[in-house]
């Protein structure tokens, strides 16, 4: 093992370099808001923030996977609404117990993702178009299932989204954290993750190397759909109700978080951990601006500017690392 030590050290240095930028930006934002508002730097703020971020986190992990294989999934917001509606109807009308209804919700997401993936690979259609179709289909499905009404569930589902006494974070957030860690491990340590990165870099090379890229891509879309379903469970639990109008524009927040985290829209490069930082930056920004009483138009302007600045900064960061190596 002695021979491996220098590369271990190099790996740690590389890791520090990779996450240092995101940590700095996050710390700067927290510092800024703490300085501007007396109530920002409190346990209550961070507890709320963490619990609200759970749904976006799991969806952004799925989106990271899709972007790494050079795809895109525009349907996650609608799939979340569809899953949530199924969950709401199952619990409020059919009287299903929560675990069964939550499982059905995730299976719904998996199924929608599977359709996305299957159509994308079977006919080699850009996933942008396939998932744009699914965005409408799943939304329509959500209205149909929920009969265009919000399904009130109440306390029966609140357990997942409510902060646990003593820790201050909800089971949803802890599951989301676990998903982030597992996602990062899958991406960097498994053969499946290696194939994902390879497909995103150059699918033709992968194919000529004797690997069928199609099932891998299809599974990635399925994972993304399933995580949208999981996000639906979290959100429904937090709100105590399932709204078929939920998640409109959520795909863009997810893509924003992933891109802020430095994942390339061209595929082949990405980090689930950095996506998580991206989610936190968006969440901190949202919470901080709310506390400062900033109005919706200004909030949107600022959030948009942060996304663009983050991506520009990433271009420079990459140039620097390339010049150094």
């Amino acid at each position, binding site marked *: 093992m002695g021979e491996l030590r220098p590369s271990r050290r190099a790996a740690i240095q590389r890791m520090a370099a990779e996450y240092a930028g995101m940590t700095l930006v996050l710390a700067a934002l927290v510092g800024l808001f703490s300085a501007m508002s007396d109530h920002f730097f409190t346990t209550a703020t961070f507890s709320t923030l963490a619990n609200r971020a759970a749904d976006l986190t799991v969806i952004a992990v799925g989106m990271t996977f899709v972007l790494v294989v050079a795809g895109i999934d525009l349907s996650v917001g609608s799939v979340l609404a569809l899953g949530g509606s199924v969950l709401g109807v199952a619990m409020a009308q059919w009287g299903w117990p929560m675990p069964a209804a939550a499982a059905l919700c995730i299976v719904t997401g998996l199924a929608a993702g599977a359709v996305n993936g299957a159509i994308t690979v079977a006919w080699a259609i850009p996933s942008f178009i396939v998932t744009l179709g699914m965005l409408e289909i799943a939304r329509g499905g959500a209205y149909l299932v929920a009969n265009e009404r919000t399904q009130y569930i109440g306390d029966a589902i609140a357990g997942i989204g409510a902060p646990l006494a003593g820790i201050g974070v909800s089971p949803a957030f802890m599951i989301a954290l676990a998903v982030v860690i597992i996602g990062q491990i899958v991406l960097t340590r498994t053969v499946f993750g290696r194939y994902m990165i390879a497909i995103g870099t150059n699918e033709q*090379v992968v194919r*000529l*190397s004797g690997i069928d890229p199609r099932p891998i891509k299809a599974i990635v879309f399925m994972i993304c759909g399933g995580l949208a379903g999981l996000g639906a469970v979290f959100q429904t639990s937090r709100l105590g109700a399932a709204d078929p109008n939920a998640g409109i524009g959520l795909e863009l927040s997810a893509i924003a978080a992933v891109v802020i985290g430095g994942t390339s829209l061209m595929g082949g490069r990405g980090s689930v951990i950095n996506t998580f930082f991206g989610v936190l930056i968006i969440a901190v920004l949202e919470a901080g601006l709310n506390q400062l009483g900033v109005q919706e138009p200004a909030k949107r302007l600022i959030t948009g500017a942060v996304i663009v600045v983050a991506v520009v900064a990433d271009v420079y960061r990459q140039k620097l690392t390339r010049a150094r*190596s």
Partner: protein
Amino acid sequence: MNTPAPAPGSDQPTLLSLRGICKSYAAPVLTDVDFDLHSGQVHALVGANGAGKSTLSRIVSGLTPGDGGAMTLGGQPYAPGGKAEAEAAGVQMVMQELNLVPTLTVAENIHMGHLPSRFGWVRRSVMNAQAREALTAAGLGDVDPSAPVSTLGVGQQQMVEIAATLRRSCRVLILDEPTAALTDPQIDLLFEQIAMLKQRGVGIIYISHRMDEIFRIADRITILRDGRVITAQPTGELTMDVIIRHMAGRDPVEATDMGERTPGAVKLRVEHLSRGKAVRDVSFELRGGEIVGLAGLVGSGRTETLRAIIGADRPDAGCVYRNDSSTPVKIRQPRDAVRAGIAMIPEDRKQDGLLLSQPVRANTTLATMGAVSTAGWICSGDERRAASRFNDIVELRGAGIEQNADELSGGNQQKVVIARWLMRDSEVMLFDEPTRGIDVAAKWTVYRELADLAGRGKAVLVVSSDLRELMAICDRMLVMSAGRIAGEFTRGQWTYDDIMAAAFSNYLNRKS
């Protein structure tokens, strides 16, 4: 520096003069380079990959500013601020990489930047007529100016690019590896054009790895090594051996015992393979321990044959058998071929061969992840050891396994692809143009690697447009012409003329 000896063209006034040109990126690429080009002269620039040829031509053509030194063009100070300025001054460059827009037509590409138009509307008929003239002048009379460039072969695209460049006013023409994708007749046409340009007083900087071409057309040769001018002499005063020694900085590898092996058992049998018009009823056998050449003109269906064998494109008919089996291998996609031990090393390494933004390690193990993982988990120690081991076998030098593939030289990139298939233990290796665009020294290494693979009992098939190369390294040669196998020769029985005759045979009486 050597004093310039009299040479053809040197009685003419100096057209382009470079003094003390320097350029550094992370490390110095060019150091104190002097270079003179006279009117009507073909001045060849040779050197190994990374010697600085391309950087020098980029400086002259205004694509990259130099760090130091001065240039004069026709006696006037010349410091182009960009490619457009250089072109306005009459300095044109045909780049090594194709510079055409594949979705536009041939005519639109030829007129790129100055489409004939009236009130903003493109005058298609005028454009096509002018394009046809330019194409005919370049010997491409049979190319349809209104066809999209993507429908042409790589060789024809290269000729279109040259035709496009020649339309512009031209005092200095830089040709960077213009013949890499051309067939011999196309090369002849190019050289006729060059002769015409010389008569018009155009000075030509000619960059090529192909020594035979340089001896054919260059009046003067400048040899670069590690960014410095090693020597600049009239062609007549240099021999191939001397040039290679100067380029490599050491003695060239002997070319002996490149062929003459004893072939073993049949490893691959292809029967009646057909795909569209490109591959017609192709049958042949490959034995272990032999190198078989697949010769033919560009567009004769060689690449298409390889792709059909490994299932990259589905064949219309035909079967592939492994060893002496009488049941064909079912090949529906490359995965099936790879599992059957058949690998293709594609011509375009950057497009089809390598994950450019990934490290050498990941590129090496890509086809054999199973061997360095347990239940889907990558064992990074195993992976590093495997990558090191196979890149040691192919003698990857000057690059580590954690270096990204796009940072490697062309020769090293080729080695990494070979290492991938060595690791996969593929028994049949199909090489498509393995030495395209790599320098002479690296070519020898590739030849040695091919011989080494055959020595390990692999069946090796090599497609190459460089017939002399095939004649040097192969035990047996198949010749394709218009999609068919038009001849088979064994070492000792072939002559250059016979093989060329076979390559042309199906084009003489057939309209295809």
